[in-house]
């Protein structure tokens, strides 16, 4: 074996033993572990400056973006597009109305006061919605453009990958019980819609609006200020 062949063989060795599905599973576990490290270890041990929390999150985003590049995924494939915005929104509209109706009913039955300023009491509603859209976009990007797509690499398009994506989203909101239920339901809807009409803008809009409606309608004690991880207990 000449040196060139040996180098080529050495480079291809680790890749040859790991299938595409295993690699996708490893990627999912890696990003989930980064979020859990941030939620459960670093945010609790960090001082006033939460900069340390940015380390695993940055690593996760580096992995996600590099993975897109290496897999040759385009912005359009990931859902950064406008052509299917309205079809995606149409798919989201009915579940959003149903969930909003249920949330309003639960809020009414539990005696909670409907307060559209509860999320950020000192800010304009426009700011609340903009913040919700931005935060929702980030979450939907990681959840759908990465998790959902990798889940589809493993299990293909359909119920299993939708449920796995929703379960991951729910687990990341542990130990907030009501938020886990809500994120699982929302995760199923969003993952289902993404598999049919991959559009991150529509999903981000839905995410922002639903968060605002749920926080406004449900009793504050139920959502515990949307706290997750170790912060839930603080």
């Amino acid at each position, binding site marked *: 074996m000449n040196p060139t062949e040996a180098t080529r063989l050495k480079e291809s060795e*680790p890749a*040859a033993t790991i299938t*595409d599905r295993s690699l996708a599973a490893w990627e999912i576990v890696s990003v989930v572990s980064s979020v859990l490290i941030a939620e459960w*270890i670093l945010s609790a041990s960090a*001082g006033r400056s939460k900069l340390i929390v940015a380390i695993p999150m940055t*690593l996760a985003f580096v992995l996600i973006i590099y993975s897109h590049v290496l*897999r040759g995924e385009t912005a359009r494939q990931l859902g950064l597009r406008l052509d299917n915005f309205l079809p995606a929104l149409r798919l989201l509209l009915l579940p959003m109305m149903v969930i909003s109706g249920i949330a309003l009913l639960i809020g009414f039955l539990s005696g909670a006061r409907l307060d559209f300023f509860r999320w950020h009491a000192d800010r304009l509603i426009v700011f609340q919605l903009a913040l919700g859209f931005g935060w929702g976009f980030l979450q939907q990007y990681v959840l759908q453009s990465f998790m959902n797509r990798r889940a589809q690499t493993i299990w293909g398009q359909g119920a299993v990958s939708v449920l796995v994506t929703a379960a991951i989203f729910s687990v990341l909101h542990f130990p907030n019980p009501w938020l886990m239920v809500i994120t699982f339901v929302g995760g199923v809807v969003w993952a289902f819609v993404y598999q049919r009409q991959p559009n991150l803008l529509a999903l981000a809009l839905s995410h922002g609006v639903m968060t605002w409606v749920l926080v406004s309608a449900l009793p504050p004690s139920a959502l515990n200020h949307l706290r997750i991880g170790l912060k839930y207990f603080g």
Partner: protein
Amino acid sequence: MNSKARARLIHLLISKSIIEALLIGGVAVAFFFATTNPYFRGVLDAADQTSVTGWAVDESRPYTRVEVQLFIDDSFAATTAADQFRPDVHEARRAEDDWHGFVFTTPRLAAGKHEARVYAVHSNSSGARKTLQLIGKPYRFSVE
């Protein structure tokens, strides 16, 4: 995905895991030093139905007085400073001066067996977190 891209992704995944493991290790070490003072020394000498006595020293700051807390049967009972006259501790070269003793008045207890524990209070550098470290060994005593 071709094998070269796959190999790169694997290397990135491994590198990311190593960095995160080092980060968690660093946080664990920092957490240990923020919540633990390895220089606390002391003994719970005696406990009975009238008092609980002993001494406590912070060897890293030998002239300061350690704050100590008494727990009886796992319940908080009292807090005080270890600033009582104990020349024997100084003579034994366990402290730099004579004032590191503590004396608690035992609260009223039901008849039977009890256990006293004394903890030194450790504050982190910012004072935002306080942790307790057991001084000496738990002391079992009876009340008639």
